[in-house]
């Protein structure tokens, strides 16, 4: 009987002890990133020899004042009345501001890119050099997600389509459409590798 009671007490103690050791197991990242890895035609990882910058169009716009006469075009950030007086025709040009997600990274073999909370298509500009770039379009559904009371909320996504230009990119493939804050490979970008 004493042995039995001792056993029960030990088991209860273990239960309470284990309960006391419960940890806050929130994910390290509270943001979800679309992970894109770079591979060659055989699926082997490759590192880009050029530097890589990734830019996106933001929802803010830059305004430019374009003055045009027969042979001359002047683009300015501020209006200049004297040009109109000289016979230039004024038009307003708006262009989306660009945000830099990755700035001239060398030897990149993958990128982790944020997706928009509200848009259903994001456009990423992969800039390899001043004259060489690819554009990647990611179509996605957005799911605001409740993780827990302690861990808060995070945006989850489901990739429903992906396309790109083919300057350096050969093809692009979704390998896992669910984008969450548990980082895993979502997209493979196949590059044309010159030997």
């Amino acid at each position, binding site marked *: *009987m004493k042995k*039995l*009671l001792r056993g*029960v007490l030990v*088991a*209860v103690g273990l*239960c*309470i002890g*284990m*309960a006391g050791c*419960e940890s806050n*197991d929130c994910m390290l990242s509270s*943001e979800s990133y679309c992970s894109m890895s770079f591979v060659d035609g055989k699926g082997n990882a490759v590192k880009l020899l050029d530097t890589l910058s990734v830019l*996106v169009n*933001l*929802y803010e716009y830059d305004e430019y004042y374009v003055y045009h006469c027969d042979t001359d075009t002047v683009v300015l950030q501020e209006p200049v009345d004297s040009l109109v007086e000289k016979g230039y025709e004024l038009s307003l040009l708006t262009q989306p501001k660009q*945000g830099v*997600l990755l700035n001239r990274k060398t030897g990149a073999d993958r990128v982790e890119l*944020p997706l*928009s*909370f*509200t*848009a259903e298509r994001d456009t990423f500009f992969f800039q390899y050099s001043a004259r060489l770039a690819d554009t990647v379009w990611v179509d996605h559904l*957005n*799911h*605001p*997600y*409740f*993780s*827990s*009371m*302690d*861990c*808060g*909320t995070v*945006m*989850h996504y489901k990739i429903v389509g992906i396309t790109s230009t083919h300057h350096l990119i050969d093809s692009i493939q979704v390998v896992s459409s669910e984008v969450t804050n548990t980082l895993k490979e979502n997209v493979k970008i196949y590059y044309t590798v010159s030997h």
Partner: protein
Amino acid sequence: MLRYIILLVINLLFVSVPLSAQTKKMRQVTEPERSKIAEWLDLTDSIPVFQGVSVMTDLVGPGWYAFGGDFFSSEVALEVNLLNRFFPVLEVGYGRTDATNEDTDLHYKTAAPYFRVGLNYNVQYKKKSPGYIFAGGRLGYTSFEYDVDGPPMTDPVWGNEVPFRFSGIKGQALWAELMIGVRAEIYKNFHMGWSFRYKVRLNVKDSPNASPWYIPGFGASDNTAFGATYDIVYRIPWK
């Protein structure tokens, strides 16, 4: 009675039954073997199988809430005593919460019934005492709806905000519990006792927008949780 049921089952298992064109050779259990099995099952000291029925309720759930906890749960259970050794149990309860986290400002609300079925095993079944020490298991299930809302989410890159408010999300949960406990008679036919439970989620239905935080009958946790009950038991007079 139980002896005969078990021996019948053993006979059915071992007797030569023509299975798939007699491919398997089976033989009749001999009388010495039956005696050995009955001895191994401790059925030699026969008592009536049916030893009574008890109803009980838990005080920890309402007590926890009364002292400021976020969760309220209340349950009643029906327990059948077989041989003073096996106690099949059916537990029916109701759990609810309406909680807000001060740090994250998230609000979660749900209320739903839950059910558990299982068995307690009295490790002191040889003793004739009215109390007992037991180990047991439960299988729990609930189907529920929950609301969750919080501050709007702000996109760190593009800067726009998304409201966060979801109502009537449907959830289901199936879980298992391992437990140990004690019970003692405090007055004629009235018992009191503790049980400590280790709970494991077996299957929880998530939605695209949420993973249930508090599950009625299971509690609030991730994949595992601990629980305790303090039971008031009334043993229905049987004979």
